[in-house]
């Protein structure tokens, strides 16, 4: 549908929360031709406009998840860009950044272009491709970052594995400066973590599972902060999970080093206790840690040390999770539970204010990754999330739009849910009432 002939959309009477404009007040948002036409106050209904009653709901700039795995190309049996983008829309996300650990690896402009086109064709949430840092994510040769930026890559990462060579990471940080894109690290010292399948601690000792110590992550966090200091490049820390990592990022930010960081919804809500009984739906990398880590990560979000909330959405086939714990793959589906989890563990508890939550899920992802959106200011992208921050619902994996069913939240009550997702002025998702 072309933007020019679109019907106006009036989001009426919601609590409009837009930290980019310092806005938190009841009012209307009008979308016209795919863009925000006006925002705030009672706007009146233009002729022929579709009106969505948003009373009792929050209307925020569209939420963006900068860390998802959509599995296409390569594992279309577990997720496609279309089902992943649909899942994102159902979770209230108007944009996602797709990690490049596909098969083949998204390490060249052709594959980046493919991911981008598939995202556009899907017509749900916007899909922004990540490119790999190294060819084949092998950690040896720098991939053609410039070509990939030209094809639409918004950031680079070898996520799923760390960049083991400090020299290669240094080079990537320096080289990416030309294109003004972040380089995102999966922090994990493999010589410490290899063979590990959960947090190292008393639970791993009890269950007889090899643990992954917190230091496996922290060693890479400090290494990369120091490399960012040396190079002036922008290092973005993927899925931080430990108290020590928060302290190290805080240390880096205090010194003006260009470091940004994200945390997954599961790492601010669940502890390693979820693994009890060898629950493979609680197996992810980095692993679920301890309450002390959760406390530090939540503090980090509240004081701005940690910039973004993400999901690390990682669908897997049922059969792959239905097996011995150590052999099961890492990761959980997250797009359709993230908003509920964040509202339950961060908003309801008072850890974050509404403004902070919207900032971490919408404004800052756009800002840190230089993406359009993240604001409701007039003339900007018509991407909006409408959500109920207190609505109680029970997670039922069978209802997911994602092909994945691997969630540790199944059967749990969450508070907070997306009610409608608007991308480019189109309502791409409307929650059943």
């Amino acid at each position: 549908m072309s933007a020019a002939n679109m019907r106006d959309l009036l989001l009426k009477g919601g609590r409009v929360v837009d930290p980019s404009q310092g806005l938190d007040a009841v009012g209307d948002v009008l979308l016209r031709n795919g863009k925000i036409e006006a925002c705030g106050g009672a706007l009146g209904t233009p002729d022929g406009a579709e009106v969505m009653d948003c009373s009792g709901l929050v209307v925020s700039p569209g939420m963006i998840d900068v860390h998802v795995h959509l599995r296409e190309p390569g594992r279309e049996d577990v997720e496609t860009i279309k089902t992943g983008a649909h899942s994102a829309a159902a979770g209230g996300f108007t944009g996602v950044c797709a990690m490049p650990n596909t098969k083949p690896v998204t390490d060249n402009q052709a594959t980046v272009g493919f991911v981008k086109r598939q995202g556009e064709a899907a017509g749900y949430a916007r899909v922004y491709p990540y490119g790999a840092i190294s060819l084949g994510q092998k950690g040896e040769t720098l991939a053609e970052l410039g070509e990939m930026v030209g094809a639409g890559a918004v950031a680079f990462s070898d996520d799923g594995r760390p960049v083991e060579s400090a020299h290669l990471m240094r080079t990537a940080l320096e080289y990416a400066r030309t294109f003004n894109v972040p380089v995102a690290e999966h922090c994990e010292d493999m010589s410490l973590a290899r063979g590990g399948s959960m947090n190292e601690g008393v639970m791993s000792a009890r269950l007889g599972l090899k643990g992954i110590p917190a230091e496996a992550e922290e060693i890479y966090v400090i290494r990369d902060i120091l490399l960012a200091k040396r190079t002036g490049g922008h290092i973005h820390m993927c899925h931080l999970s430990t108290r020590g990592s928060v302290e190290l990022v805080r240390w880096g930010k205090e010194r003006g080093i260009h470091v940004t960081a994200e945390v997954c919804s599961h790492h601010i809500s669940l502890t390693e206790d979820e693994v009890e009984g060898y629950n493979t739906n609680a197996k992810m990398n980095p692993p679920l840690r301890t309450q002390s880590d959760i406390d530090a990560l939540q503090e980090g979000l509240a004081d701005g040390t940690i910039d973004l909330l993400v999901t690390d959405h990682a669908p897997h086939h049922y059969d792959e999770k239905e097996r011995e714990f150590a052999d099961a793959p890492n990761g959980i589906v997250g797009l359709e539970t993230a908003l509920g989890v964040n509202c339950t563990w961060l908003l309801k508890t008072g850890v974050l204010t509404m403004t902070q939550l919207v900032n971490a899920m919408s404004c800052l992802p756009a800002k840190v990754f230089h993406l359009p959106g993240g604001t409701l200011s007039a003339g900007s992208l018509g991407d909006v999330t409408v959500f109920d921050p207190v609505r109680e619902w029970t997670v039922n994996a069978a209802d997911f739009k994602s092909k994945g069913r691997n969630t540790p939240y199944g059967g749990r009550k969450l508070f907070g849910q997306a009610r409608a997702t608007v991308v480019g002025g189109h309502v791409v998702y409307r929650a059943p009432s």
Partner: protein
Amino acid sequence: MKGILGKDLLGLEQLTAEQINVVLDTATPLKEISLRQIKKVPTLRGMTIVNLFFEASTRTRISFEFAEKRLSADTVNVASTGSSVSKGETLVDTARNLEAMKIDMVVIRHPASGAAQFLAERIESNVINAGDGMHEHPTQGLLDLLTLRDRFGDLKGRRICIVGDVLHSRVARSNIWGLTKLGAEVAVCGPRSLLPNAIEEMGVKVFQRIEEAIEWAEALNILRLQLERMEAGYIPSQREYNRVFGVTRERLERAPRELLILHPGPMNRGVEIDSDVADGPHSVILDQVTNGVAIRMAVLYLLSGGRPEQAIVAKAGVV
């Protein structure tokens, strides 16, 4: 069928002291069966038991098989090589296929921690864990408890030290749970690189040096040191291990008391244990093996729904 132990025996962590004592009490009279000329009672006649071994085992597999046969169960052994397992069949499919053949119990040995529980949650048959990865080996733990109880009587307040590669040992974990539940004081001793980081949180003392452990303990349970640990860089060499942590006669002679010596086998003589200790007067290593059959008979009997107070009757073949 559900007896006093529940459906499965997955580990000692889940058992109460009372349940553990019931197994030990049940095993004691069953020992006599193995001393008879005709070592067979009809207690489990008509029952089908599958011994599913995904990992090499001699002692444990034979011990289970004797226990099953002496109770007149029909048994089938499945090893991971030469079966559909080696053709890539998943654990859950293997289990479902076995169950479709209408079996009563599965004894499983598997290299992955949690495999026994995984199986138990997916089939209706009773599941007995014969060792899962680095997690638990409950029948070994029980036979160690029985051996100690035979010598010490009540284990309350007794000081037992587990020596060696606790990190990778399922025997160690089952011993820690079993002993602490029965009120014993438990310590571990070994190179720190072979002890779990958070081991103190499991309620045990840690000795850095074997000399201190020997001075403190009334019994040592000496774990096997696996060759792979050297290859993986946990310790420098077998030679040094023996020099620093080996249980030798010289070290035992300096102890303030005589120590009972246990070892789950198979032993590396001259590495974790010297031959004159293994074969010495205070070694109960072969008693452990003998008790192993009785313990497994007791577990099979109790899981099949047998009542502990009838175990003596059961051995005569009336039940």
